[in-house]
């Protein structure tokens, strides 16, 4: 098919007639809107899209996307999506999931999908709470958080989803925020263009059970102090007056102020394609450190890694090229046979 025959889509083409049933004010609305917009711009026939989800608020996503959609069972979306992608590599397979679905019950499938580098795009809505079951803590909730199931505070240390994805050898890892529409769309487009697994953590507000979860990042006044936007080839500079930066100090990072002889030249330049994971880990762990900003954007885009579905297809092609296509009559007669005559 040539691009000339492609229909021109608008966001509306990706909306369904189903009433969207998230709570008013939920961050999911913004994510839905961004995804619909991005899908319309990708110039891919609509019937090629499959949106797969597990269970949770975010997993209602497929019902609102006018594509092929599969709302499955808790945590299993990556495994179902893997079955879809390896049998039909031509499909655009996206997974909508949340911090509970992807990191708790579905943690195993998440890490194995990432290490295999199946060409699936994962949108992980992280609101640091269980919303659909009404307010229990999640595997990304902060230590000590008081929730319905932890009236005295949690005793669990949380996951850092980005770090987990990098540790699983994910070839594309990014982070964006529900309310940063243009950044989110930009990040989604980069994920769509990546060949292999793409894991996008989307910081999302649950205004009912965990309102203000990311307030320190999203508040207009605070955001530029608390966020550093990663841009490939650009220095890691942040701050209201763009007067702070991240610089390497030995094997570690440090936050410095651009003054007293420290200039832009001293600041670390972001390289999302850096082949070693160590660099991406350093970035991922900034969010836990005092005075460090939280990075958003593409942390890692490890290119030219073999995709699982291609390796599978290649094996089949190689065997068929060498031995020809299977012959059932011959297969049934493999090994020793003998004839009984009448």
């Amino acid at each position, binding site marked *: 098919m040539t691009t000339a025959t492609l229909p021109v889509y608008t966001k509306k083409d990706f909306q369904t007639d189903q009433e969207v049933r998230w709570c008013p004010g939920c961050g999911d609305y913004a994510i839905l809107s961004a995804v619909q917009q991005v899908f319309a711009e990708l110039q891919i026939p609509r019937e090629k899209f499959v949106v797969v989800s597990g269970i949770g608020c975010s997993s209602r996503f497929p019902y609102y996307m006018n594509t*092929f959609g599969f709302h499955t069972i808790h945590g299993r979306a990556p495994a179902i999506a893997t*079955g879809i992608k390896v049998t039909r590599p031509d499909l655009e397979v996206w997974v909508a999931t949340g911090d509970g679905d992807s990191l708790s019950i579905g943690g195993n499938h998440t890490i194995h999908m990432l290490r295999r580098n199946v060409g699936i795009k994962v949108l992980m809505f992280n609101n640091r709470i269980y919303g659909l079951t009404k307010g229990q803590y999640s595997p990304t909730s902060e230590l000590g958080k008081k929730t319905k199931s932890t009236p005295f505070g949690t005793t669990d240390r949380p996951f850092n989803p980005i770090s987990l994805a990098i540790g699983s050898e994910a070839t594309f890892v990014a982070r964006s925020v529900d309310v940063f529409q243009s950044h989110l769309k930009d990040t989604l487009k980069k994920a769509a263009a990546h060949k292999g697994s793409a894991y996008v953590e989307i910081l999302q507000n649950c205004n009912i059970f965990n309102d203000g979860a990311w307030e320190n990042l999203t508040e207009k006044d605070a955001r530029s102090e608390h966020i550093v936007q990663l841009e490939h080839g650009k220095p890691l500079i942040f701050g209201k007056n763009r007067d702070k930066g991240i610089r390497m100090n030995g094997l570690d990072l440090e936050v410095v102020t651009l003054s007293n002889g420290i200039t832009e030249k001293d600041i670390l330049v972001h390289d999302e394609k850096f082949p070693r994971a160590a660099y991406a880990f350093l970035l991922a762990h900034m969010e836990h450190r005092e005075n460090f900003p939280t990075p958003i954007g593409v942390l890692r885009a490890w290119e030219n890694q073999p995709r699982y579905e291609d390796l599978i297809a290649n094996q089949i092609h190689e065997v068929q090229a060498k031995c020809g296509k299977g012959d059932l009559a011959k297969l049934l007669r493999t090994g020793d*046979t003998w004839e009984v005559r009448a």
Partner: protein
Amino acid sequence: MPGTVEAPPKRKREVIDKAVIRFCGDSGDGMQITGSQFTNTVALYGNDLATFPDYPAEIRAPAGTLPGVSGFQVHFASSDVYTPGDSVDALVAMNPAALKMNLSDLRKSGILIVNLDSFKENDLRKAQIKVSPLEDHSLDGYRLFAVELTKLTRAALKDTGLDAKSMDRCKNFFALGMCYWLYNRPMDSTLRWIEDKFGKKPQLAQANRLALQAGYSYCEATEAFQVSYEIPPAKLTPGVYRNISGNTALAMGFVAASQKANIPLFLGSYPITPASDILHELSMYKDFGVITFQAEDEIAAVTSAIGAAYTGALGITTTSGPGMALKTEAIGLAIAVELPLVVCDIQRGGPSTGLPTKTEQADLLQALFGRNSEAPVPVLAASTPGDCFWIALEASRIALKYMVPVIVLSDGYLANGAEPWRIPEVADLPDIPVLFETNPDDFQPYRRNPETLARPWAIPGTPGLEHRLGGLEKQDVTGNVNYEPLNHEHMVKTRAAKVEAVAQDIPEVVPEGDAEGDLAIVAWGSTHGSITAAVNAQRARGRKIGHIHLRYLNPLSRNLGAVLKRYKKVLVPEMNMGQLLMVLRAKYLIDARGLNKIQGKPFKQEEIENKIKEMISGDSR
């Protein structure tokens, strides 16, 4: 007569109808290979046969100990063979532990070959034996041949340049060579196998060849055996035959189904005994485009298969009981979204990890009912290793026609057991029609075929058919999420009716044996052989018995209830606590009785016969 020299008497060759031989030894002794080689040879000769490999769950328990004993039994005959045999005619025991664990199955005056070199004090201690059975007269009732297997093998291999340990690994083939002489069997098929297996290691090929031939020549030369046996070929239905195990047959059946349906085959599986061989087998068939996905767990195995089915592939998953338990929720999803799927449960002893390498039939109720809510699925069971091929085809046909997950029950005994199998002509295999929805005009994802109640298979990539599926309850026809009370009841009943509709599409039961009479034996799965043998024996004594072996456990054949009424009594033998029995009693309100064995071993013919006698004559003994 002193001074005269006489030629040794020509040894006798007896023609007999059948024999049961068992090779047993340490799990490192190569008993499974020895047994399968013997099996292949007698099969190629034209005997009917059944096998029973019995091996421990431990890969290598400490050598020479009781838990490390591995065995392989072959029953071969010039007439029909239904079971691996109740008792053993010839037992080859490579060490005292094997002897201790297996002797009770050797019939009185049966042939007993033991490795004399492995009855030293240390060997006896490992087998927890105080006095050597070779010395305490406990073997007096058998025809004992204590042979220095180790020493003789080493002598035969002395010029190969192998070290002692490698030479000792060949002693199983010395024993095999002896058995070939004993039953007058040619060695060429095993010699060919040695060539294939060790072609790249000529030293090992040579060693195995020498050991095999030395065993044969030993019998020839030493006159240890005064009699050898000849078992003429069986009168099988004309055709081309091969040996087949249940797991191989299942794998090939699914390849055949995918070819006949003209859709790709996808297997999602997680290694588990005794099902793993299906994964191994299918992973070789890349030339058929088969995709095998060794998943991260049992749940990913089944869900990936659901994903593949969603895109239009024949999605299957294979496992055993513990894996079935993990797949439960996902099977419910396949029921709700009405996608085709075949789930194979190769049963083993349970609960929990249970007896991984031993057989059982105790997952029937799990297959029928082991899901949350009202979640019926068709359930099929294979009855012999070869039947696994046909069951795979039939399960695929039903799954694809009715858009429903189907469960196939096999078990460890069928999975690893082998029998001669008449190879079907590909042209004779039934076509499996598959129709993908392509028409976008007024497309509705849950608009049903009025006959089968199947919804359309509308696969991703088809323009205009974009729609959403999910585990939430949906409105019929549109598939939109719907929580209305009456809609839910309608959908529950519709899903059940769809499975019930299969009953119109499967054959009625036809009892083997008497069509009416004193006793109906109703059973399923791998008990087929021993029940057939027992029923044949008892009918020959004039008893009126019908044997109804169910291939379809859900839905049950539509005439089953009526057929059961033609018999005075109903017996249900099962390798469980009475699971089919419970279903039959509940469904047909009949006073059926059970015969239940939960020992990780198949029924013996004798056990069934005793129960038949008790049921018919009322004799409680």
